[in-house]
Every structure is written in structure tokens, then in C-alpha cells.
């Protein structure tokens, strides 16, 4: 499974929301992510992808859509 599919599944598991059609939508404005959900997602991503996502990095500007999160994960995996 590629990262995008895994992320979609992860968000579905955590928050019972399907974001596959709204990969460019702001997840905070859509009411899918909040500060609590952000941390849950960070912990899940750490376990799944073996990356360390800084809590202060998953801000509301740069990691706020499905596609941006996928790009972020790829960036951290290659770092």
C-alpha cells in the first residue's frame, strides 16, 4: 500500500472520516482534525511509518490537508 492509501485508512480508523475525495481540503476547517486529533494522528504516523513528526510542526498551515500530510511524511521518510 502506498503512503496516501495508508494515510486515508489511518484517518478512517481514527476519526471515522473518509478523506479520499477531499485530499486538498483543509482538515481543520472540515472539522475532521482538531488539536486532540492532530496528536493522535502524529502518534499513529510515528508507529506506522517510523518517523518522528514534531508536535509543533503539524501546524494548521503546512500540514492541514491530506495531500500536504502525504508530502510531509515522504519528506520525513527521506530525511
Amino acid at each position, binding site marked *: 500500500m502506498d503512503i496516501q492509501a495508508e494515510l486515508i485508512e489511518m484517518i478512517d480508523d481514527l476519526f471515522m472520516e473518509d478523506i479520499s475525495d477531499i485530499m486538498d481540503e483543509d482538515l481543520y476547517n472540515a472539522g475532521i482534525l482538531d*488539536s*486532540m486529533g*492532530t*496528536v*493522535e494522528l*502524529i*502518534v499513529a504516523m510515528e508507529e506506522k511509518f517510523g518517523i*518522528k513528526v*514534531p*508536535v*509543533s*510542526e503539524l501546524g494548521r498551515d503546512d500540514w492541514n490537508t491530506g495531500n500536504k500530510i502525504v508530502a510531509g511524511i515522504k519528506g520525513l521518510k527521506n530525511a
Partner: protein
Amino acid sequence: MMQGLIQWLQSIPNWQPYGEPKYFAWLLAFLIPIVVAMFFGRRLKIYQSLVSLGFIVVMYTGASYHQLFALVAYVVWQTIIVFAYHAYRKEHDTFPVFAGAVFLAILPLIFVKVTPAINDGNNSLLGFLGISYLTFRSVAMIMEMRDGVLKEIKLSTFLRFMLFMPTISSGPIDRYRRFEEDYDNVPDREEYLNLIEKAVWYLMLGFFYKYVLAYFFGTILLVPLKAQALAIGGFLNWPTIGVMYAYGFDLFFDFAGYSMFAVAISYLMGIKIPMNFNQPFKSPNIKDFWNRWHISLSFWFRDFVFMRIVFVLVKNKIFKNRNVTSSVAYILNMLIMGFWHGEYWYYIAYGLLHGLAMVVNDAWIRKKKKVNKERRLAGKGPLPSNKWTKALGIVVTFQFVMITFLLFSGFLDQLWFHNIK
């Protein structure tokens, strides 16, 4: 020589930030060269620093001269901790050292907050106006260094950030990386004109808020209402209800007015400091209220307290249920905010009530989701959500907030426990 310095400091009149019209006249006069240079695309770094220092010194002169010594000692202390941790973090990353650095950074503030509670209301000699807001800035830096997102820091920028004159006494609380980017770049002319326009508007609105509305609610209404309420005494009486609303509006207009001055002066210096208030009394629920009230503080707590607590709880799987996790984190977060305000029962009760309100808020959202799901399965439409339900939410939130502000004001403490009729 020390004696001479103290005498000299005592002889200089004390000027509180944005305290009187004369302050604005002098401040704006000194800002003219900065504004003109900024208009031509240059930042007068040295001149700006000297003007800032001058206005900082007069905050602590006269009778409060010892605060100036406390400020200097405090800044030296924070500089050592932040730069020592920065040097350490380049090579290593362990939790105990990180926790130790945060603890040492908060230590002076703890002393200052605890001293009056255990020393008959006397203030600590380590205290000075603005110590909380400087602490928020340095602690955030240590946390961001631990996260690995703040890598390079410069001593000169650090000092300018910590001692940024427009916001030194009460915020808004800026972040180092944001500040540095603004400071190292000069806004282009169009953007700067836009900032000036906003600054002028905020200055006028700030005057109206602080010197008209806050004066009306906080002096003309509040003072006689308090006297009436105390004269009647008892557990609760009508004038106390009046105190509640008068104090709540006074608190808002006074602090929002001050914040507008701070933002306006920052804009004139080409620093786009974050806004602190966004029509908080229009919030339809308590979580939204904290996105609109003292925003830079509540976001600081969200990023550096709430999310860290949740991280530890989720990572170590302390609670199976995520609703328990978020509830515990909300209550701890708001309790810590209560303790930060001061070690008095009414501040802590204020924090606890807001934490509980957020738990209730979340429970209600879950309940609504669940009911709507069941209704959908049963072929029925969702629960009503329209301007009337929103209006109801605004009214309920507003009343709750006003009640907690009455508690926060300390007036109930006076009415119930210290009412000498």
C-alpha cells in the same frame, strides 16, 4: 555608585505602557524615524533598539526601580538557559535535560506567583511587570528546539524578541521563528502602507475601548456596584449580578484595547504580531470562545501544554478511551492556566470550570453526532441547526463566561470571606 544609580532611577517618572496620552505622544514622536525608514525599505535596527530600551526603562523607574534589576537578572537567567539548551540539543536529545531546562526557565515565574500566597500578599523581589509573557516566549523556544523545528538562534534576535517593547508587559505572545522572519525582512511599501492603515485604526479603536468603554464599565459602573453589593452582603444579591457584567465588559475592553495598542505599535515597527481578540462574545460554544479570547495565550497553551499532555497520554496508552484522554487533558490544561493566573482559589476554580465546560462541549458534540446518525438510519432529518440554535449557543456561552469572569475577578472572595461592613 550603586546608590547613585538607584537615586537616578527613582527620580525618573514612571510611565506604564499606553498608560496616558502623553505616553502615546512621545512614543509616536520617537517612532517617526522608524516609520519613515521603513517606508523607504530600511529597518533602523540600532535606533529601534535604543528607543525600545528607553521606553522599557521608564516602565520600571520611580518607585518600582527594583523591577528593572529583576528584569535584567531575569533576562540573563533566560539567556543562559536557552543558549545552554540550544548547545546541548545540537548534540543530544534526552528528556531529563529538556524537562530540566523547561523547569529552570519557569522557576522565576513560580517564585513570583507563589510568593504572595505564602507571604501575606507581598510581591517577590524577583518579579517585574511582564515576567509571565517573557516566560511564555522562552519556554516555547525550548520546546521548539526539543522538537527540532527551531535550529538556529541568534543572541541579538533573541534579546530583541524577549524584550520587544510594544508587547513586553502583557503580550500578545509571539513566537521566535515568526518574529525573526519579520525582523529580518522589511515589508514592501504596499504591505507597509496597509500595516500603517491598520495601526491607525487599531489605535483609534483601542482608545475607544480602553479610555471610553473600559472607563465606563470599570469605573463609572463597577465601583458603585461593588460598594452596593458589599453593603448588602450575603451569598448573592442583585448588585453582584451587575458587578458580573460590568467587570466582564471592563476586562474585555481594557485588555482588548491594550492589545490593539500593542499590535498597532508593532505594525508600525513592521512586526506583524498576532491578534489577541476576535469578537469573543459572539462565540457559539466554549471551545470557539478560546479561539477568540486572549488568542495568543490560549494557542500557546494549546500547542505547549494541551497537545503535549495528549501526546504523552496517547503514546503511552494511559487511557483506552480517547474521550477520557481529551477530558483529562482539557482539565489539566485549564487548571494549569488557572494556577498561572495566581495561587488563589478563585483562579484555580476558574480554570477548572473552563476545563469542565470543554469536556461538556465535546460530550455534546459526540451526542449530537450519534443522535443524527440514528436519525439518518431511521430516515429522519438531522437535529435542527440554524440561526436560532446558534443564538442559543451564543447566549449560553456568554452567560457561562460572565459567571466565570465574576469568579476570576476575586470579587466573590471579597464578598464571601473578606467583607468588612
